[in-house]
């Protein structure tokens, strides 16, 4: 018989076994191309050339176990999940072959087989759907968007506002500030010490005789009492400063008496 020529254990005299064995060998060649056991099972299921709904899970289990066995013979490293699937299928196979044990809990072998068939059918369906999706007219390949989009310009416009009240308040604020100025600005009646110093410095060198301080008040500061008071005070302060510097001598004969000054040579 033909299967005698095939290496490895020949358990099944069924001519299908030859095809299975060949399929298993074919799978081994590109095992790296498979995405896991389910992918391998789906490929194996296709060799049954039937609607996936009517697939023989027992046959599938045999095919898969043969595939794993073949891989072992060739000392091919299979990922762990392939071996887990092999163990599970071996279990399923034995359950399917044995008469059901009424004592046993858990899902029946048929339920498990049905679910595996469903999984394969669903995976197959998704692969077909993916292929149909990719076959659609795709944007940038078959169908094109506007090449020179104009887009939406966003412009921001700022509107500045001010009311007449703002304006009035602003001006009022300025004028209010001006109202404070007289307190510090009314300098008409103030003769500063700096001014007095400036006035006395060039004069003092020429004063050889004792001279009354009031004689040194600037012109026009004598009439108005307020102005005279300011000028006198500042001139007196200036003479103290100059006396400190050794520029003049300062004398007052009696309390509230007239103050006289004389320059130092």
């Amino acid at each position: 018989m033909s299967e005698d020529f095939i290496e490895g254990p020949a358990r099944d005299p069924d001519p299908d076994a030859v095809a299975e064995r060949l399929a298993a060998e074919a799978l081994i060649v590109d095992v790296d191309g498979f995405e896991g056991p389910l992918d391998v099972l789906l490929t194996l299921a296709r060799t049954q050339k039937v609607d996936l709904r009517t697939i023989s899970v027992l046959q599938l289990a045999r095919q898969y176990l043969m595939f794993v066995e073949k891989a072992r013979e060739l000392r091919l490293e299979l990922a762990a999940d392939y071996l887990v699937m092999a163990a599970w299928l071996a279990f399923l196979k034995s359950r399917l072959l044995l008469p059901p044990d009424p004592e046993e809990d858990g899902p029946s072998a048929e339920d498990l087989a049905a679910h595996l068939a469903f999984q394969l059918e669903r995976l197959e369906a998704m692969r077909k759907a993916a292929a149909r999706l990719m076959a659609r007219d795709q944007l940038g390949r078959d169908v094109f968007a506007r090449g020179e989009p104009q887009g939406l310009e966003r412009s921001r416009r700022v509107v500045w506002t001010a009311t007449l009240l703002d304006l009035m308040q602003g001006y009022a604020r300025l004028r209010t500030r001006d109202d404070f100025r007289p307190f510090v600005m009314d300098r008409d009646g103030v003769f500063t010490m700096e001014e007095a110093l400036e006035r006395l410095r060039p004069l003092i060198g020429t004063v050889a005789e004792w001279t009354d301080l009031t004689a040194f008040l600037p012109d026009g500061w004598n009439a108005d009492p307020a102005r005279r008071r300011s000028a006198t005070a500042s001139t007196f302060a200036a003479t103290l400063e100059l006396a400190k510097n050794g520029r003049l001598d300062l004398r007052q004969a009696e309390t509230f008496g007239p103050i006289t000054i004389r320059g130092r040579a």
Partner: protein
Amino acid sequence: MTESADSESLFEAPPLAEQERMVEAILFASAAPVTVGELHARLPHGCDAPAALEQLVKRYEGRGVRVARVGDAWAIRTAADLAFLMTRETVETRKLSRAAIETLAIVAYHQPVTRAEIEEIRGVSVSKGTIEQLLDLDWIKLGQRRQTPGRPVTFVVTRGFLDHFGLGSPRDLPGLKELRAAGLLESTPPPGDGAPLEDAEATDDMFERSPPEEETDHASDDTA
């Protein structure tokens, strides 16, 4: 140019033909689909974007470009039969791996779908790079979390996906109806959680050893 609330109520909406022109201008100016909401925001007050769109779609039927619906948005796209003229515009896209293509299809047909469900369907774990690539392409996005233990995130397809594959809505996915009718879009947990079926014997060996020709009839081969 923006109208104040007052002027909006003072002026009537432009005639529909004029609205159609406006929608036309807006769609032409944008490379990305424009939602009906965005259209209303840009059109003068009182415009009826859906009515204008309907007219515009008709106007462009059979033209070199067409007005395409993309989910809740609209875009102008070149007619697919003229793709051969567009070699210059063709964008060389990175070839998607089989894993990415399958994952995309699973998200599209099963959405919202969790990563665990994708893995259950494909029978292998989904690499992080695959999900990332699809997120990068703006073809899938995160949906709402599933209200199950662990509250896993779900994935759904985007408007960009619909736009890329020329789909008006996820309902327009090819073969969706057939897949649903066949029960292939249901999330069926593997057996084992619930109690075993009592009438397990009735379906005994339905896949077993029969010649392929006879296997098409599910009910007839109960004997073993």
